[in-house]
């Protein structure tokens, strides 16, 4: 393994993302959890950049960090959530499910890492390098994937209308 700038950045970003994810689920103060989640999104966005997916990286910042997490923090502040005093209850059935899910997750991770080092996942092809730009992504979305794209937009429209109906007490 050669130690160029990209490797150093990759290692530090991945370590930071894992650490921030662990901190996110172990903090007792909900605001701190939310802040670590923002840090996590930031590191993931950096990882996208390393994969040359500039557009996806910036959308990650714009949508997740800039919009969704602001709403999360808004809700936490307005509801004034207190410190999580109660520890996790009822270990019985939850722990079984979580052990199963954890085994599955680490199975997938182990599979990827193991076969990755076997040489199945070689460096990025030229096509993968240019797919991350806005032009290529837009062209794909409006030609090959136009139906799912429109479907998703309808879903969002329905969600917006639903939100307005829920928020508005009664229609005049």
């Amino acid at each position: 393994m050669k130690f160029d700038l990209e490797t150093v950045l990759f290692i530090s970003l991945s370590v930071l993302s894992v650490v921030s994810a662990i901190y996110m689920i172990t903090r007792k103060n909900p605001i701190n959890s939310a802040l670590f989640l923002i840090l996590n999104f930031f590191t993931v966005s950096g990882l996208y950049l390393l994969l040359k997916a500039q557009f996806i990286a910036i959308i990650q910042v714009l949508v997740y960090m800039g919009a969704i997490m602001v709403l999360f923090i808004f809700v936490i502040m307005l509801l004034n959530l207190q410190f999580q005093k109660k520890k996790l209850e009822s270990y019985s059935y939850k722990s079984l499910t979580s052990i199963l899910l954890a085994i599955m997750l680490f199975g997938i991770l182990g599979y990827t890492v193991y076969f990755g080092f076997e040489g199945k996942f070689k460096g990025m092809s030229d096509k993968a390098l240019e797919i991350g730009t806005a032009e290529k992504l837009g062209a794909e979305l409006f030609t090959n994937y136009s139906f799912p794209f429109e479907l998703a937009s309808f879903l969002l429209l329905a969600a917006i209308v639903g939100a307005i109906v829920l928020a508005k007490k009664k229609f005049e």
Partner: protein
Amino acid sequence: MSEFVIELLITLSKISVVLAVLLTGVAYSVYAERRVSAFIQNRYGPNRVGPQGLLQPLVDVIKLLLKEDIVPASANKFIHSLAPVISIIVSLSTFAVIPFGDTITIGDRVIKLQIADVNIGVLYFLAMTSLGVYGVTLSGWSSNNKYSLLGGLRSSAQMISYELSMGLAIIAIILMNGSLQLDVMVNNQAGWKWNIFLQPVGFIIFLVSAFAETNRTPFDLPEAEQELVGGYHTEYSSMKFALFFLAEYANVIISSAMITTIYLGGWQFPYLQDFGLPPMLVSIIQILTFVTKVVALVFFFIWVRWTIPRFRYDQLMNLGWKIMLPLGIANLVVTAIVLMLLK
């Protein structure tokens, strides 16, 4: 020296020069604000330190540094210290994508006068402005003061609302240029083809949104001193307060730079290439053109602040959601139709 080291050195020197100029600009826009407001209100303003009070920013900085730093007893100390840092980092790093000149040739090396020429250009600007909300919101929350919290919440609601119309105004420009890159946008505005003439409605929407995003009057509700004491930075003192102050004026300069780049032709000086000047001089004139346009816009920001009274909160929201947003959508649709017809 290898090619990589040279490139790194060039980028680092560009960053340091831009930061130095930006921070000096921030200090002097505070001075300009005080002098212009004094002129508008028929007073003198700071004119004691140095000729015409020109050394006033220096004295202000020393004063702010020497003040005692107070953290409220029941505040969340870590977030209280983090919030001003977020504000200043976000606003300063926005400048990375703004082209402040075309290219400059030193020796046989052509240097692009832009720190980062990224494919996503203008989206980076939008992303960074959307992150600016955190500094304000977190400072308001962590101070454990109801006025701060109100200021923080107002500010977040305001910034989120006006981001949308700003985005819509930018999308119309992106449609016209077919690119997100800011230097492409500037190159397309050569001569007098400035976007302000092609997109007058978009320009007005962007300008109004920029005022709202930077929390300037007539949209300075987050710090409306008559209602909220001082808004989100009520509980801040010393250098932490100074960081908010710096961030606010840095935002004004960066918004002006952005308006210049998108709507006023950036560094373009009309018909400069026809004069047959040496390339070095052309580069310098282009940089000066950019700086002049930005300074004029900063003056405009100050001028508006001391001319127009503050909006009420419901008026602000009505303007954002019921006028600016539909106007932005209409502008976008009309632009798209015209572009289709011209094709």
